[in-house]
């Protein structure tokens, strides 16, 4: 029955009989699937966006810094400032096996204090300066423009006066066509050779496109930092629980610095894994929500189709009576109405998917250059679409059963009597 051309001619003639009503019915389901597609596409876009933002930084990384104690311990009173030292690094590596990379960092101009003045000829500006080890790029990726490099081990051991500058620094200190690599800039009146320019990536946090990186050892000499460390960037191995590692790291540091084990304020930390999990949970929730809303809207639309078919069956009582008097079996009548229902549902579904896809493509085009909003490549997975279509076929059939049953429950003789 489903593959007879005549069946479709019959269905087509009956659904085109009342065009306005059919259109409105179709819009009901179309709207449902449209909402479903756009919402889940948007949720996926947001998900992709978050992923893109977090891609720059190792997901299982954390940052640890020190503050002031809040609990008296071993004769020390509260309010004591704690200073991280280089020797903490080896201790941590020794005692916390889960640490893959650890990078002590120093900075000038970030957490209080003036940014150093950077000069180049007549141009100058204030930029934050970081003292870093090469390993820091393992934790938070730094893209270096062609022809340049990041700080390497030799820079560290020889305390070389080399620096990696930011895009903005380059734009502000150098001429447009000038290649900054190999040129010199002065940081707090000391000349540094530029070895690379890093590409700025929005990744949250405090870093920006003007940042200058110099070797940790050079920084230490330049600012008399001694063994002091500003904060630690730590990446744990992929398969370990970062929260656990965070606790362990803090415990080791507490022991090192005579901090009370129950002092929660002395050491600050920021766990990216935790944040990432939260964000992921959020976008998962959003996906689920959009699915529920979408399916509920589809359901509402399909119920609308059922309703319209019920009315249409009521209007066609006499016609169906005639058909049955002329030899249409109840099965044929029922089948036709169910096919009508499924056909209407599917047609509107397909239009809804097309419309939704167009809107998503439009939004994608519109947000392509937006980097500060986490929204990338909004897509709806094919299984979702197939699932939606399957749901529509099933619901269309089920809802079609009601008017179909109604149509055959009226005896042809009663249907014929109806005027």
């Amino acid at each position: 029955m489903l593959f007879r051309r005549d069946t479709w001619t019959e269905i087509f003639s009956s659904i085109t009989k009342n065009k306005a009503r059919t259109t409105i019915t179709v819009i009901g389901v179309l709207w449902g699937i449209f909402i479903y597609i756009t919402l889940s596409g948007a949720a996926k876009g947001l998900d992709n966006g978050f992923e893109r933002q977090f891609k720059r930084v190792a997901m299982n990384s954390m940052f640890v810094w020190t503050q002031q104690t809040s609990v008296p311990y071993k004769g020390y009173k509260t309010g004591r400032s704690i200073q991280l030292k280089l020797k903490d690094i080896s201790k941590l590596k020794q005692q916390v096996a889960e640490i893959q990379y650890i990078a002590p960092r120093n900075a000038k101009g970030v957490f209080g204090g003036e940014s150093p003045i950077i000069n180049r000829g007549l141009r100058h500006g204030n930029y934050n300066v970081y003292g870093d080890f090469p390993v820091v790029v393992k934790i938070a990726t730094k893209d270096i423009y062609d022809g340049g490099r990041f700080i390497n081990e030799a820079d560290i051991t020889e305390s070389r006066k080399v620096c990696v500058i930011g895009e903005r620094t380059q734009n502000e200190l150098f001429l447009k066509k000038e290649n900054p690599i190999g040129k010199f800039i002065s940081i707090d009146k000391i000349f540094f050779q530029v070895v690379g320019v890093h590409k700025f990536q929005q990744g949250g946090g405090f870093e920006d496109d003007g940042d200058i990186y110099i070797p940790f050892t050079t920084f230490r000499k330049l600012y008399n930092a001694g063994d002091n460390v500003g904060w630690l960037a730590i990446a744990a191995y992929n398969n370990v629980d970062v929260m656990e590692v965070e606790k362990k790291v803090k415990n080791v540091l507490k022991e090192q610095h005579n901090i009370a084990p129950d002092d929660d304020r002395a050491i600050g930390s920021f766990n990216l894994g935790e944040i990432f999990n939260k964000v992921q949970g959020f976008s998962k929730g959003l996906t689920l929500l959009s699915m529920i809303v979408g399916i509920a809207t589809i359901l509402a639309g399909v119920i609308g189709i059922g309703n319209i078919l019920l009315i249409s069956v009521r209007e066609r009582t006499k016609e169906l009576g005639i058909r049955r008097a002329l030899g249409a079996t109840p099965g044929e009548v029922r089948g036709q109405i169910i096919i009508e229902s499924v056909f209407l549902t599917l047609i509107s579904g397909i239009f809804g998917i097309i419309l939704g896809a167009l809107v998503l493509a439009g939004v994608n085009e519109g947000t392509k250059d937006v980097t500060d909003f986490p929204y990338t490549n909004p897509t709806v997975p094919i299984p979702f679409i197939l699932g939606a279509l399957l749901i529509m076929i099933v619901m269309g059939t089920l809802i079609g059963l009601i008017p179909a049953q109604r149509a055959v429950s009226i005896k042809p003789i009663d249907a014929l009597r109806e005027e």
Partner: protein
Amino acid sequence: MIEIKNLHKSYKIGKNELHVLKGINFSVESGEMVAIMGSSGSGKSTLLNIIGMLDILDSGTYTLDGVPIVELNETKAAKYRNRFLGFIFQSFNLISYKTALENVALPLYYQKISRKERESKSMHYLEKVGLSNWAAHLPNELSGGQKQRVAIARALAAEPKVLLADEPTGALDSKTSYEVMQLLQQINDEGKTILVVTHEEDIAKMCKRIVNLKDGVIINDEKINQKRAIDYV
């Protein structure tokens, strides 16, 4: 062709039971043209509905062309109606959004006949009723007589064994009525068995036999000299 024995039929109306047909014995030979007459409530339409398998008998037997009509469910009834019977109704019962040709083709559609064959067959019967020029018209573009002629063409299209006409002229003026009767007589002349339910004396006299029903029993059943409708047109 039709063999009915001791047929009873009653309807429940609330708590009361209305005994409509009280033991009908009735048979029709092939090629007959029978008028079933009676006042309203006499059971003539019920009898026709049972013969037309639109209604189920309570007791008795009904044999159509040697086939006992028993254990009639809706699907079986639909198939029998389609193969054995052609219906002509008082109110024509054409499908309003289908053309004359499509209406005639409808019983053939349910016989699963191919589109091409359906169209040529339907066209043949439209020609037979003299409406081949109106094939593409919708029912509301046709006059009452034309509609009934389309309905007759539709009833003939499935090549049934018996034509059942329920007050075929009830909605027509007398001139058109006679035209329709002329057509039915012509079809009967070609050998088709026709049953006509009517309460009009002149229409009944255009058949070959009159069966009179009163209060659910046949009070009179006689063969008559058929009046030719052509004489009145």
